[in-house]
């Protein structure tokens, strides 16, 4: 019998905190400036300069900690992680080691099949980012851009609680949602504001001890996480089933070739010689300050989703989708408010057609070309049976491209629904007369032909006939 393997995954997420200035200096953190213009003497590690902690970064870390039900440490300590690299100006990174600012929290994830699972968050600590080494376009030389050096990061370390790549993605998405709700990270993965390393191991199902793990670096999109983890799992199982053993090492994921390759083994790993940074006093947070930060927390995604289920009667899944970002949830709620109810209808349209248009055009909900009020205007015409849902799709398409309200489009294109019973009856009668064979077949028991007649009526009315009425009238008239 084949051995059943269990996958064990833990994630380390680096969320760049959206402070205006760096964690230990006054330089700007804006992305995309020309190299080294946003690096001052502190960022450059000049002789004699000293770090001064950015209070806003601390507040953001505390917000995160409180949002995941973690302990926000009354006293935490910055430590130096020592290693040499050209993009690390001081020869050490200021991080937190033994005493992080956030410890012991958790988040809940909901899988596609509705299963709910709690993932532990071991810790989250503050640290500074390094700069970037540039190799392209410089010939045989290497360049260094220290604009990013000193950018505040919150490193969020999970427990090894995930058992599949899908769980890992769900967790990563949850954290992504959360940091954006909290306004502490813009979540932009292309610009590297939200990065992820995955610790992956496999073990025989039922075993308690973990297998030897590998750390996969550079899994910086939701798509890559799944591919990288699945690839790594397959690689490890292959080795183990071939009688080999896993070497603890750091591996780099290459999305172009969909493979991981070894960066360094445990033996080659740096001894970082962590010790408390004597330039920074221990970070002491007063209980009253922590409570103030707690009182400033926004409604969090889980609370919001529960409220959507409760107030709007949505399914847990729909509520989860609509609360995935604060902006989407706000759009949805604005639509419902404008519409004065019909929450389920609004949910279907926001998650369905509207999201379809957004995806097609690569737009974010905040830059939707049809705002919540205009969408509500369209849905109102479905509710009052002015147009059918099918026609509404066409109207939305027009609204998407032209800055007009639903009513104007309906009027201009003559899309108003036919609800006059006599008019529909007349159309049906004509169709019955034109299709004697199909009518005969239907009457002799071929029920499936009902759809054919519906289609013919809709075609004849340009889709404008009220579908409910068409159904009712056909049922009455077809049997003869």
């Amino acid at each position, binding site marked *: 019998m084949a051995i059943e393997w269990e996958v064990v995954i833990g994630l380390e997420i680096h969320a760049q905190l959206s402070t205006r200035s760096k964690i230990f200096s006054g330089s700007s953190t804006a992305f995309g400036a020309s190299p080294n213009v946003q690096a001052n*003497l502190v960022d*450059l*590690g*000049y*002789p*004699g*300069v*000293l*770090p*001064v*902690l950015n209070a806003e970064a601390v507040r953001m870390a505390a917000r995160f900690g409180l949002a995941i039900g973690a302990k926000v440490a009354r006293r935490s300590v910055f430590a*130096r992680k*020592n290693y*040499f690299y*050209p993009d690390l*100006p*001081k*020869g*050490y990174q200021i991080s937190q080691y033994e005493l992080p600012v956030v410890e012991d929290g958790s988040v809940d994830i909901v899988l596609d099949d509705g299963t709910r699972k709690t993932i532990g968050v071991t810790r989250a600590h503050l640290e500074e980012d390094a700069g970037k080494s540039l190799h392209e376009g410089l010939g045989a030389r290497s360049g*260094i851009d220290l604009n990013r050096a000193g950018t505040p990061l919150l490193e969020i370390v999970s427990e090894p609680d995930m058992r599949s790549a899908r769980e890992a993605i769900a967790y990563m998405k949850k954290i992504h949602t959360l940091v954006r709700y909290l306004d502490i990270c813009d979540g932009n993965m292309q610009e590297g504001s939200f990065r992820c390393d995955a610790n992956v191991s496999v073990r025989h199902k039922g075993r308690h001890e973990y297998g030897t793990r590998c750390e996969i670096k550079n899994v910086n999109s939701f798509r890559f996480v799944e591919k990288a983890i699945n690839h790594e799992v397959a690689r490890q199982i292959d080795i183990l089933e071939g009688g080999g053993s896993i070497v603890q090492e750091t591996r780099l994921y290459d999305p172009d070739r969909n493979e991981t390759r070894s960066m360094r083994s445990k033996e080659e790993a740096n*001894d970082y*010689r*962590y*010790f408390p940074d*004597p*330039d*920074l*006093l221990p970070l002491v947070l007063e209980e009253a300050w922590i409570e103030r930060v707690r009182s400033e927390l926004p409604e969090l995604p889980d609370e919001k989703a529960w409220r959507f289920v409760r107030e709007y009667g949505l399914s847990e899944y729909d509520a989860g989708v609509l609360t995935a970002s604060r902006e989407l949830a706000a759009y949805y709620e604005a639509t419902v408010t404008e519409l004065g109810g019909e929450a389920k209808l609004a949910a279907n349209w926001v998650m369905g057609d509207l999201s379809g248009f957004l995806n097609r055009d690569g737009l974010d909900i905040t830059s939707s070309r049809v705002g919540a009020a205009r969408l509500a205007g369209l849905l109102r015409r479905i509710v009052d049976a002015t147009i059918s849902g099918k026609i509404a799709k066409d109207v939305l398409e027009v609204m998407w491209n032209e800055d007009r309200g639903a009513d104007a489009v309906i009027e201009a294109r003559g899309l108003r629904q036919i609800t006059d019973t006599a008019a529909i009856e007349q159309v049906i009668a004509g169709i019955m007369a034109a299709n004697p064979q199909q009518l005969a077949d239907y009457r002799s028991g071929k029920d499936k032909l009902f759809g054919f007649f519906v289609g013919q009526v809709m075609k004849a009315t340009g889709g404008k006939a009220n579908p409910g009425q068409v159904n009712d009238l056909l049922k009455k008239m077809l049997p003869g």
Partner: protein
Amino acid sequence: MSLHLKTAAELGRGIRAGEYSSGELTRHFLDRIGRGNERLNAFITVTPERALEDARRADATVAAGRGGALTGVPIAHKDIFCTDGILTTCGSKMLANFVSPYDATVVERLAAAGTVMLGKTNMDEFAMGSSNETSFYGPVRNPWDETRVPGGSSGGSAAAVAARLAPVATGTDTGGSIRQPAALTGLTGIKPTYGRVSRYGMIAFASSLDQGGVLAQSAEDAALVLEAMSGFDPRDSTSVDTPVPGYAGALDRPVKGLRIGIIREFFGDGLDPATGDAVQVALDIFRDLGIELVELSLPALPLSVPTYYVVAPAECSSNLSRFDGVRFGYRCDDPKDLLDLYTRSRGEGFGAEVKRRIMTGTYVLSAGYYDAYYLKAQKVRSLINEDFRRAFAEVDVLVGPTSPTPAFRLGAKVDDPVTMYLNDIYTIGANLAGLPALSAPCGLVEGLPVGLQVIGPHFAESRVLAVAHAYQRETDWHRRVPRAWA
């Protein structure tokens, strides 16, 4: 009396009284440096243009009636303080080409007080040394006997003031680097409480121990200059946000009835008997001043040297990582690759003592050794702190020798680091505990000065200075000048 024999306080008063201008004074000291520096090697960089410009500005300030106690008074800065647009070497080949793009807070504040910068003084490389022999720029000679060391690491500042090439100078003290050279050259040197003087722009050796301070001719001068350089600095997170009392104004406060603690551990085997005798004579003077002397023991204090030689190298091994040949400072020729760039730039740029401490520090922080060395040293540091805390519950200040011997000969200890390290046996405790401590001259042993150390509780600089000032009103050791430089 010649201008250079006046104290900084006297010079400031003279300028304000119109007896001489800052320009005259500055030219006088620049002239002395020009004639004397070659013998002493006290300055790495002399900044005559800057000095004369500072002096012009000071004279204008005085003319406008806005002069303060230090307006127009020349000063020399230890070359560990960054000075905007001026070479800042830290005594190292590594920074032999480093022109700082900014001023240290200390430099900025003393400029704002109207002082005139004469130049940058020689020092042990990165402040690592007790004899000024580790400097890339060569050793400094002691004005009292040019075959002897001036002490270190602020040896250039000490020699410059002792030879009256400058009326006063800044220094830094990580394990005794102000007090020991002050003792060995007959000066009054003060290291304030950790956090009192901003470390911003002071090139770090051991961040939890480094403090800026003053090498001066008297407690009064030390008080004036310390007052001007002290105070909260938002750019240094370890700087303390409490007001700076007027040190100079508190000099005359009564010392009668104070209790002085005599640290038993400071009078043991290692102490040169003649030096010990000089300190005993000073104690008699304190008794005559109505001060009560109490002998007490600080049992953990003898552990301060080994503790220091774990903590300081650990911090320095990390602090000095930024000198990597990438962004500033020395870079080796034609590096083959990154590793070659690092190893040769650092191998060629740092001297032997700095390398020794980087290696020691790297070792004590390494996986598997951290607990046994670094963590244990931190625990001992707490014990030493606790000893001082208990002592200050009983007495107002602690007194003892500053250095176990007078100045030793150049080259005498360079090959024996442990003997060299033991020079700081009496001074290191105050750094580990972050306490203010001062050394004042209390005698001559075979023509060489010896120092008396006064240690106070945290932020008791005024008390320490007042005790020294009371002593200096009764004695004239602080007014002695080496004959060759009078």
